[in-house]
């Protein structure tokens, strides 16, 4: 064959598709045999995630080798075509090989393999892998976080009634996310996306016996479904726009991620197609990644068990939307015109989400809801970065955020498990836990510092990079909004930290037992307005705390390990819980150094290995195609084109394509770094002082402020009711739109459909009566009666013959014989 693809691939890259396959098989095994196993299926889940993690780490290492080879210039030397051929025996690689770009950075070809999944009407839908830096980063991240969360769950959900199903759903979720992350085409992305949606629904509603939980699950599912329509529509728009171009230029199709990227940057794509395609796809991201205005499902999703919140609703699943934007970045780049600058949909939505969610986090008493709004806010930060052209900082923030947000959620789970008797209410059942739970508190504080962005924790590097890049790309206003977001983040996290771990122990944290649900029902808070008559929770908002206690009272499995553990009041959690927490806290500390711009090029690991190179790749000059067909490979040798304007700002010349726009990278400035640190420090300090004064000393100037000061009251209620968005959705949209539709449907049902049914019934009855009177009575009965009458009359006529007189019989016999004889004679004569 040809020595086209000289970059080393290796086992882990070629077989990266095993990474999602292993948990998928694990899921099937857990569902099939889990209940009979000694650890009820959890061992399969953990083993499959461990295998996936190992495979993913191997893929990371080999990807780095591949990039190194390309960078060292030995890429065109030919070489291990043998290994490639053996792989190409059953897969196809249809995209250009390595080439040296003019700007010094060679293009590194992703390891793409596809297998035909099904065919319909000339369309081939494939399953495959698209392994590049982003994919290996997310694969290893998802697999590793899933592994830690499953280990955490061993202890956390021990004794649960649906223990096996819990692990099955977690494993299936990981498979879905991994499928999406290495997706080669849009259909596969939709597949993984929907698997995640399903698992999210199952896991939020894990304790579905409590109505609030199943309502929260439904809300999450339906809200995300609203966005999912955008995914289908966007995929269709992009497909019809890109398909012919992809066939002509790349021998590919309009679902392929790589072909779509090249098409979007080719300059041949229609502006309207790109615009509406990217808007539709972004609507899907709004739903999945909890962006304004569809963020309302995410806080309610905290009704699920804490590991679920930790894995799905903070660190992995909700970044699927961010991942989709990052994966199809050329489409959004061109469709929403990131290149020329100027405000666009993604940046605006991201900025709005960043601020409003952070504000909402201030009025939450539920520790998990604080973290949920924090997640929404950070997702807004990522979207803001993507929308302003800061691709790498956004992906970097996804990476670091996963560690510290997962850690925070697991800490919250640890607190509720061992410290607050399954309550998540910070004001009622927590406080002062730092002495009782030193490890948990330490990990929490480390992760909090990472989240708020304190040097040298991870969040400092990623968040600062976002802010600097947003400013550098010309979005000054948005940069200040991001600073505001950082300030708010520092403040609300300080509040949550103070309420949970400092101050006086309250409620369960003080060792009190409340066995009744009343302890958890909403009562007026000192800062809430008693007189407001508020429907504080008018919509039957799920309260995880209530759910927990109700579940426990109903002898639900979750509390099956009994109250013995809690007899001694708050205590530190066991090792199975602490080990993942501590590992995550460690990573939250060090993961920032993977792209620590302040320390120079050597620390910019993610930039080198993860960000796709914006090289112009020439296709026509050295295009070498081998006849296609099952098992045949099509390979392109693609030396670089002549120097042109950067990808994403000008169309590549004829016969050349770009796969990624040339994004800008802002240099680090210590001035901005110190400004960010100062703002974060101010947030931390002011919030700490406020908390000490308000919750600790109960300062008279602050307590009851909302009672005395009307604007404060209005602001508080506005936040408490979550900007009335839920009211808008449920009262205005659902009642205003759905109810009239329902009424109209009812009217149509009653007056049109029922009428048709009634009329047809009546008509049938009349026809039936007519038939009865005329056909049945007259024709059929008449025929029957007539035949009876005829038989009777004939019988009467013939009656005399049967007289019983032997002589007569003899006479008849002989008479008949005589007649027959006469006839015989006559005939013969």
């Amino acid at each position, binding site marked *: 064959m040809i020595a086209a693809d000289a970059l080393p691939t290796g086992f882990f890259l070629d077989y990266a598709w095993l990474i999602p396959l292993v948990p998928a098989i694990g899921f099937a095994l857990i569902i099939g045999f889990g209940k009979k196993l000694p650890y009820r299926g959890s061992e399969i889940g953990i083993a499959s995630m461990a295998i996936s993690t190992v495979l993913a780490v191997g893929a990371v290492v080999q990807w780095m080798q591949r990039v190194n080879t390309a960078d060292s210039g030995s890429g065109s030397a030919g070489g291990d075509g043998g290994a490639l051929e053996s792989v190409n025996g059953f897969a196809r690689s249809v995209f250009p090989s390595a080439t040296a770009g003019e700007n010094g950075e060679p293009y590194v070809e992703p390891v793409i393999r596809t297998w035909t999944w099904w065919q319909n009407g000339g369309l081939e839908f494939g399953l495959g892998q698209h392994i590049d830096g982003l994919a290996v980063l997310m694969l290893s991240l998802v697999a590793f976080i899933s592994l830690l969360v499953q280990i955490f769950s061993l202890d956390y959900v021990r004794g649960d009634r649906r223990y096996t199903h819990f692990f099955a759903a977690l494993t299936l979720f990981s498979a879905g996310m991994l499928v999406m992350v290495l997706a080669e085409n849009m259909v596969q992305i939709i597949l993984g996306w929907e698997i995640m949606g399903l698992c999210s629904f199952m896991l939020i509603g894990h304790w579905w016996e409590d109505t609030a939980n199943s309502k929260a699950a439904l809300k999450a599912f339906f809200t995300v479904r609203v966005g999912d329509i955008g995914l289908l529509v966007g995929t269709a728009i992009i497909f019809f726009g890109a398909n012919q171009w992809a066939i002509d230029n790349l021998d590919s199709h309009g679902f392929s991620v790589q072909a779509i990227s090249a098409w979007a940057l080719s300059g041949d794509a229609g502006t309207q197609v790109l615009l509406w395609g990217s808007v539709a796809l972004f609507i899907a991201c709004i739903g999945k990644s909890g962006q304004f205005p569809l963020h309302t499902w995410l806080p309610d999703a905290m009704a699920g068990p804490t590991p679920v919140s930790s894995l799905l609703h903070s660190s992995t699943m909700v970044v699927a939307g961010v991942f989709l934007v990052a994966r199809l970045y050329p489409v959004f780049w061109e469709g929403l015109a990131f290149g020329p600058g100027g405000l666009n949909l993604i940046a605006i939505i991201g900025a709005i989400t960043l601020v409003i969610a952070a504000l909402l986090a201030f009025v939450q008493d539920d520790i998990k809801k604080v973290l949920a709004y924090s997640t929404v806010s950070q997702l807004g930060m990522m979207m803001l970065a993507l929308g302003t052209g800061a691709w790498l900082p956004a992906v970097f923030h996804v990476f670091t955020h996963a560690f510290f947000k997962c850690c925070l959620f697991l800490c919250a789970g640890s607190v509720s498990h061992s410290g607050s008797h399954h309550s998540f209410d910070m004001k009622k059942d927590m406080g002062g836990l730092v002495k009782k739970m030193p490890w948990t508190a330490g990990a929490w504080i480390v992760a909090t510092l990472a989240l708020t962005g304190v040097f040298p924790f991870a969040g400092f590097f990623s968040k600062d990079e976002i802010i600097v890049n947003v400013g550098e790309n010309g979005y000054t206003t948005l940069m200040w909004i991001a600073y505001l977001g950082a300030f708010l983040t520092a403040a609300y996290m300080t509040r949550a930290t103070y309420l949970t771990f400092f101050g006086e122990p309250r409620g369960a944290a003080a060792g009190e037992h409340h066995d009744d649900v009343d302890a958890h029902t909403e009562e007026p808070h000192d800062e809430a307005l008693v007189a407001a008559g508020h429907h504080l929770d008018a919509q039957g908002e799920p309260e995880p705390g209530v759910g927990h206690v109700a579940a426990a009272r109903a002898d639900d499995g979750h509390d099956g390990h009994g109250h013995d553990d809690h007899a001694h009041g708050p205590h530190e959690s066991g090792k199975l819980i602490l080990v993942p927490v501590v590992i995550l806290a460690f990573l939250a500390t060090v993961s920032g150094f993977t792209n620590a711009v302040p320390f120079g090029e050597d620390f910019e690991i993610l930039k080198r290995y993860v960000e796709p190179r914006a090289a112009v790749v020439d296709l026509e000059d050295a295009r070498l195609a081998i006849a296609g067909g099952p098992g045949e490979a099509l390979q392109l040798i693609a030396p670089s084109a002549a120097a042109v304007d950067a990808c994403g700002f000008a169309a590549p010349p004829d016969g050349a394509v770009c796969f990624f726009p040339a994004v800008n990278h802002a240099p680090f400035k210590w001035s901005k770094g110190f400004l960010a640190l100062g703002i974060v420090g101010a947030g931390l300090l002011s919030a700490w002082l406020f908390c000490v004064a308000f919750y600790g000393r109960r300062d008279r100037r602050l307590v009851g402020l909302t009672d005395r000061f009307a604007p404060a009251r209005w602001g508080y209620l506005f936040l408490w009711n979550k900007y009335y968005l839920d009211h808008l959705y449920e009262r205005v949209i659902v009642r205003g739109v759905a109810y009239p539709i329902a009424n109209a449907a009812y009217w149509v049902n009653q007056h049109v459909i029922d009428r048709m049914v009634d009329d047809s019934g009546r008509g049938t009855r009349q026809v039936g009566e007519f038939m009865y009177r005329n056909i049945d009575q007259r024709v059929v009965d008449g025929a029957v009666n007539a035949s009876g009458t005829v038989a009777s009359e004939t019988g009467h006529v013939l009656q005399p013959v049967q*007289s*019983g*007189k*032997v*002589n007569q019989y*003899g*006479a008849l016999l*002989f008479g008949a014989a005589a007649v027959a004889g006469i006839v015989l004679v006559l005939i013969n004569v």
Partner: protein
Amino acid sequence: MLAANFLLLSAVIFCIGVFGVIARRNAVLVLMSIELILAAVMLNLVAFSAVLGTIDGQVFTLFVIGVAAAEVGVGLAMVLMVYRNRRSIALDELSEMKG
């Protein structure tokens, strides 16, 4: 014309037999009339046998005699039973039909 004489006689006997069957009320006389009919038939058989010079007709006749004897035996037994039950052997009184 030998055969014609036999046949003529046979026809006369047959007619007498038929008349007896139709006209007599006494069951025994009806049986006897049946025997006359059978005799007419047998006479025919023997006559044709003699004319054609084969023995078949005569063999048949012997069988018919046997069957006729058996038939008369059965018939007389029935008559005897009817007499025992009804004290009469008048055939027109035997009918129990309403028509």
